[in-house]
């Protein structure tokens, strides 16, 4: 019956010329940017971006730099995994940065240690009985906060049909308010050792990569993924084909909220402190990572792999600037240009194929 494994006849079809996955373009952009820094480094400061040039260490690559490139984007990266799913369903989540702030404050106040350098903890939020709790308590409390915020977002969007932009903008404002209110603007510090271990060293990277793999599989292999793409592609059609769109959206925003909360836990643990201003603008960075990675804001298109690559592009840019000792005043201008250029490259190469 079917002539090929690719379809059921009709036109001539040349399977070797299948359209290349868009992630390849993002990867190309990433490599191009790395190469640019390598070349610029050798030209202007006589040093290598990627390779080790120090005599006292003998590794091929500059491992510290490779580590920091990914470490510095892991936390926003965790948020971006959730944001990617939200955007694929055709939504947007502006609240993630503020949820990070609120969650960090609340979780950290359950993770405080009683004695600091022999003195009582000067930043104690709760009384004696609530100090030195097992690490599971702040983690669950934190995830609970994220879940709550995500559920509120999701329920609003799914059942009142207000635009996700507004629902999550409202949550953004409210959660930031909550972060400031929680301890009246005072930072919360001095966590227990076990809490501090969550974000120590390369743990954030490990968490980020593990979650990326898990969500990659979920988005490509499960019904959840399929329905997310379907809803983002044509919500009305998804509804008419019998997908429970409302319930699915609630789930997607809840997951995004929990991922933001997890990012907050890792962030506050890594920094050994929580402050009301934590996570400001993370939402935009997370969205930008996703979009640079090829996730379409119209919904229906994109992938977790793309987002991870988008995050790496961010990491490389930040490290590259410091490496080149670029004047801080110029950094932002150049960063803006690179973000745009990365996406232009991607779009342009996709169009090239379309015309081919």
């Amino acid at each position: 019956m079917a002539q090929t494994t690719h379809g059921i006849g009709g036109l001539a079809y040349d399977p070797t010329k299948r359209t290349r996955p868009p992630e390849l373009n993002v990867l190309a952009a990433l490599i191009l940017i790395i190469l640019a820094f390598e070349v610029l480094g050798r030209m202007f400061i006589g040093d290598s971006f990627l390779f080790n040039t120090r005599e006292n260490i003998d590794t091929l690559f500059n491992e510290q730099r490779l580590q920091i490139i990914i470490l510095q984007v892991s936390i926003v990266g965790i948020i971006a995994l959730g944001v990617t799913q939200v955007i694929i369903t055709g939504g947007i989540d502006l609240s993630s940065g503020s949820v990070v702030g609120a969650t960090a404050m609340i979780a950290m106040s359950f993770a405080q240690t009683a004695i600091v350098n022999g003195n009582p903890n000067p930043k104690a939020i709760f009384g004696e009985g609530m100090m030195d709790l097992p690490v599971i308590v702040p983690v669950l409390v934190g995830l609970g906060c994220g879940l709550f915020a995500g559920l509120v977002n999701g329920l609003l969007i799914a059942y009142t049909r207000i635009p996700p932009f507004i629902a999550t903008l409202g949550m953004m404002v409210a959660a930031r308010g909550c972060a400031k209110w929680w301890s009246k603007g005072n930072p919360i510090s001095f966590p227990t050792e076990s809490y501090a271990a969550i974000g120590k060293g390369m743990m954030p990277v490990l968490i980020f990569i593990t979650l990326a793999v898990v969500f990659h599989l979920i988005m490509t292999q499960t019904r959840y993924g399929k329905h997310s793409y379907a809803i983002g592609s044509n919500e009305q059609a998804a509804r008419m084909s019998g997908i429970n769109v409302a319930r699915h959206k609630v789930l997607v925003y809840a997951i995004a909220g929990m991922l933001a909360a997890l990012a907050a836990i890792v962030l506050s643990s890594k920094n050994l402190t929580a402050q009301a201003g934590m996570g400001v603008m993370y939402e935009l960075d997370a969205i930008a990572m996703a979009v640079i990675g090829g996730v379409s804001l119209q919904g229906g298109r994109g992938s977790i792999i793309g987002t991870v690559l988008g995050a790496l592009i961010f990491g490389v840019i930040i490290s590259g600037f410091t490496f080149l000792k670029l004047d801080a005043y110029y950094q932002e201008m150049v960063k803006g240009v690179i973000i745009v250029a990365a996406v232009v490259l991607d779009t342009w190469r996709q169009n090239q194929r379309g015309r081919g």
Partner: protein
Amino acid sequence: DGIGVSMALFDDNFLTVLRNGIQAQADAQGLSVQIEDAQNDVAKQLDQINNFIASGVSAIIVNPVDTSATQAMTDAAAAAGVPLVYVNRQPINVDSLPDNQAFVASNESESSSQGFTEQCNQWAAAGKTEVSVYVLQGELSNQAAVQRTQNYYDVIEAGKCAVKVNIIDQQTANWSRDQATSLMTNWLSAGTPFDGVLANNDEMALGAIQAMKAAGIDMNAVIVSGVDATQDALASMQAGELDITVFQNAAAQGGGALDAAVKLAAGEAVDQKVYVPFELVTPANMADYLAKN
């Protein structure tokens, strides 16, 4: 009735202590204060003042977002006949304030210079004549950041530093501990030897310390200075990591501002300029400051 307060920013450690100082003083006197968050937006601050005026407050306290934007605020309050007190940051029109306006502030140009001068002395005491340092700046659009960085250069130019200072690189970490950790790690990945870190505030100093500890750098070999003397900073100092910070008496400024506002509202005369000095904090005197912030 009541006193309106417009703070530049709520989620800032230092300004939170100052705000608490105002609140504490008001509670002590049984006054109602309404504190607003200008979220670092000059325009929002001016609007808040106008909203206070529309609500008929008896006096206004302003912690200016931008000290060069104070003329418009002075004009607005003066036109409505409401007394106004600037706190913490010296308004640009300080010499031409109307009679019912005053300010209580510290001189930012003293802030980081005290700490930096001490840092120079410590290097000299360690037998160094030439040092290499990294500079962590606050938000570039923020005057305090610009001023605190400028102070380093002023000290060097005025010859007040006992050693020769080479600045390897100077970047912004936007006041944030997390960004400072990443930035410092990026610097460390270049492997350039250095003798110290100058941070515009304690949070960034702590971030840099975390990065150095993670990279296994001996904290006795580098001298790190910050500004603010926060509790976290003092704990780090106790642990032998942070070497120098500078204390600014926020609570005293807040309380002083409230007093001035109350007097002006009652029609009494007050000193139009009150300076609260910065105080140097090192391991030697840090015990005095453990309970102050």
